[in-house]
C-alpha cells in the first residue's frame, strides 16, 4: 500500500521505473562505500580473488592443453565413424563370430546421404602375425589392408611417393605405404619409395611413406603399414568372411548423430535383425581417444572447481564478516535512511547489492589474475600450449561470486533492514 501511494502521490513514476532508480541508487551507494574503504574492500575480496584466480588458472591451463590436443586430433578426422562387427559375449563363448558383409559397404556408400568417403579396413597380419623386415631390421607395427579412400577418410596423405590405388586393389598388387615410425624402425631412407620389404615370407614394394602424425600420450601414431585391401585378404587367406571394419567420414559434423542412426537402421535391416534383438555391430566415433582425454580434463576441471568452490565459501564468509561490521558502523546512517522513509526492502537491497558488488568485483579481479597466472605458468613450461579461458568459466566465475555475495550478504542485510529506526538513529 505504502510504496504504491508513494509512487502515485509523487510525479506518477511507474513501478518498473522506480525499481530501476532504486537499484541504480543502491549500486551507486555500494560503489561509493566500497571506494570509501578501498583497502578494506580489497582485503575483503581477497578470499574471492584467490579462489576465482586459482579456478581460472587451472581451467585456463587444462583448456589450453585440451584445445591443443583436440587440434591434433582434428587431423585424425573427428568427423569419422567406424562401423565394426560386434559379437555379444554369450555368442562369442559359443564360438560364434559376427562379421560385416562386403555388401554392407556398398549399401552404406549408396543408400546413406551425407557420407562422404567410405573405406573398408582389415588386419593384414594374418593369424599369429608376421614380422615386417628389411634385411636384419625388424619392425612390429600395425598392418592393415584398405583402399584408396582411406586417405580421404582419415585425412592422412603420403609424404613421399603415392598412396594405394584402386588398381593396386583390383590386381592385388604386393605394394605398401608405411608410416614414419615404421620407416625408421626398418632403417629405410628418408624417401623409401621403390624399396622392397618382407612381410612373413612375401616381398612387398614400398610405394609411399605417410606424413608423420606425431605422438599421443607417448605412443607413436606412425608405426603402421597399409596394403591394398584385396592383397591383405589374399595374404591372410581369409577371403570368404574377412573380419573387416568400415571407416567412413560424414560431410557435416552436425549430422553425425543422425547419420549414425540411419546407418544403424540400415545395417539392422541388411542383417535382418528383428526388433528387440541386439545389434550385431557397433558404430564408434574414431575420436574416442580425444573424447576420453576431454573427459579426463573435464573431471580435473570439475574437481578443482569443487575444491576451489569451497575456498570461495571461505571468501564469502569474509564478505559476511565485513558486511556485519559495516552494518554496525553504519547503524546511524541506516537510522537516518529509515527516518527519511526508507522501507525495509530498500535497506535490504542496498546491503545485498553491496555484498554482491564486492564479490563480483573480487571475481573479476580473480579472473584477470587467474588468466595472467595461467599465462605465466604456460610460458614457463616449454612447449606448453597457450592457456584458454572459455566463456563459460568467466560467466560461471562471475555468477558464482555474485551468488556468494548474495548468500553471505543476506545475514548482514537483514540485520540492517530489521533495525528499529529509533534505535538505529540513537546508536552511538
Amino acid at each position: 500500500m505504502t510504496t504504491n501511494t508513494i509512487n502515485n502521490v509523487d510525479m506518477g513514476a511507474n513501478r518498473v521505473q522506480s525499481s530501476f532508480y532504486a537499484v541504480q541508487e543502491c549500486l551507486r551507494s555500494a560503489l561509493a562505500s566500497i571506494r570509501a574503504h578501498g583497502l578494506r574492500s580489497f582485503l575483503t575480496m581477497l578470499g574471492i580473488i584467490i579462489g576465482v584466480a586459482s579456478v581460472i588458472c587451472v581451467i585456463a591451463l587444462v583448456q589450453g592443453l585440451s584445445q591443443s590436443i583436440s587440434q591434433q586430433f582434428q587431423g585424425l578426422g573427428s568427423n569419422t565413424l567406424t562401423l565394426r562387427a560386434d559379437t555379444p559375449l554369450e555368442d562369442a563363448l559359443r564360438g560364434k563370430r559376427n562379421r560385416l558383409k562386403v555388401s554392407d559397404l556398398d549399401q552404406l556408400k549408396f543408400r546413406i546421404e551425407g557420407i562422404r568417403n567410405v573405406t573398408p579396413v582389415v588386419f593384414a597380419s594374418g593369424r599369429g602375425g608376421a614380422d615386417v623386415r628389411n634385411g636384419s631390421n625388424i619392425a612390429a607395427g600395425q598392418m592393415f589392408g584398405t583402399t584408396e579412400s582411406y586417405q580421404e577418410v582419415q585425412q592422412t596423405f603420403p609424404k613421399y611417393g603415392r598412396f594405394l590405388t584402386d588398381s593396386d586393389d583390383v590386381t592385388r598388387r604386393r605394394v605398401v605405404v608405411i608410416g614414419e615410425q615404421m620407416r625408421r624402425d626398418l632403417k629405410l631412407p628418408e624417401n623409401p619409395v621403390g624399396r622392397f620389404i618382407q612381410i612373413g615370407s612375401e616381398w612387398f614394394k614400398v610405394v609411399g611413406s605417410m606424413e608423420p602424425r606425431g605422438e599421443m600420450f607417448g605412443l607413436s601414431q606412425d608405426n603402421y603399414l597399409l596394403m591394398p585391401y584385396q592383397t591383405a585378404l589374399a595374404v591372410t587367406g581369409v577371403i570368404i568372411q574377412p573380419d573387416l571394419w568400415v571407416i567412413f567420414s560424414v560431410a557435416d559434423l552436425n549430422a553425425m548423430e543422425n547419420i549414425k542412426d540411419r546407418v544403424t537402421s540400415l545395417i539392422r535391416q541388411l542383417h535382418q535383425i528383428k526388433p528387440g534383438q541386439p545389434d550385431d555391430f557397433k558404430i564408434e566415433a574414431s575420436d574416442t581417444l580425444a573424447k576420453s582425454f576431454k573427459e579426463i580434463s573435464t573431471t580435473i576441471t570439475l574437481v578443482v572447481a569443487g575444491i576451489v568452490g569451497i575456498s570461495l565459501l571461505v571468501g564469502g564468509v569474509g564478505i559476511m564478516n565485513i558486511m556485519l561490521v559495516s552494518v554496525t558502523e553504519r547503524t546511524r546512517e541506516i537510522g537516518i535512511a529509515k527516518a527519511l522513509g526508507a522501507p525495509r526492502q530498500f535497506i535490504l537491497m542496498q546491503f545485498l547489492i553491496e555484498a554482491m558488488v564486492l564479490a563480483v568485483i573480487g571475481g573479476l579481479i580473480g579472473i584477470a589474475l587467474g588468466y595472467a597466472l595461467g599465462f605465466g605458468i604456460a610460458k614457463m613450461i616449454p612447449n606448453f600450449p597457450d592457456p584458454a579461458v572459455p566463456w563459460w568459466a568467466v560467466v560461471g566465475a562471475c555468477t558464482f561470486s555474485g551468488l556468494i555475495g548474495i548468500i553471505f550478504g543476506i545475514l548482514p542485510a537483514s540485520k540492517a533492514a530489521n533495525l528499529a529506526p529509533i534505535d538505529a538513529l540513537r546508536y552511538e
Partner: protein
Amino acid sequence: MITLAGVGKTYRLGETDFAALMDIDLLINRNEYVALTGASGSGKSTMMNVLGCLDTPTVGHYTLDGEAVAGLDEDALAGVRNRKIGFVFQNFYLRARASALDNVAQPLIYRGISPAQRHARAREALTRVGLEHRLMHKPNELSGGQRQRVAIARALVGRPELLLADEPTGNLDSKTAVEIMELFSELHRDGLTLVVVTHEPDVAAYCHRVVRLHDGRIAEDRTQIPVKHVSAAA
C-alpha cells in the same frame, strides 16, 4: 492535523517499567507552530519520536492527517514519514560522505523519483534555505548553521505537512540559532505545521503555542503571541 488520545510510552528497564509518557491528550491543528518544552528527561524527545512515527506508543491512539497511525506496520510507517513528515535533529544527522545536494535528495529516493528530478527538487529546497551556492559541499565543509539548513532543506524537499525539530538550535551559537528560528517562522507563515522541541525560552518565544511536559505528562499548554516574529518585509 495531529490527535493524540491517551497516549503513553513505557520503556522496559530490566524488571521494572519506566513510563516516559503518560495520558497525553493533545490536538494540534494545521499550521500551528508549537514549542514542546520541559526539563531534561521530561519526555520531549520521546514525544517527538511518537509524533514522527519513529516510535510507536505503548497505549493510546494517534491520528496524523486523518490516518490512524498506531496500527501501521514498519513499512507503512516509513511511507508516512516519507510523505508527511520532515525531521530536523539537534545533531543534523547528515551523511558525512554525501554532498549537500545528495543529502537533501535522499528522501526522494524512496519515492522512486529519477535522479534528475531528485536533484532539481533538492536544489530548489537548498535555495529555499539560502544555500544555493553550497550544493556540492560535504557536511564537514559547512558551518554548523549551514549544516542545519541542509537538514532543513532535506526535511522540506518531500513537501511534508508537518515539520518536527528536536532541539534544532542546541548545537548552534545564538546568532545562528536566530537565523534558523527565523527560517522556521517563514516556513510557518508559508503554511507548514511545526513542532519544535526546545528548553530554551528564547527559542520557544518564536512559537504561537507552548506545550510543557513534566515527568511524562503535559503540565502546561498555552498559546502566546510570538515575542519575535518575522517582519512582513522579510
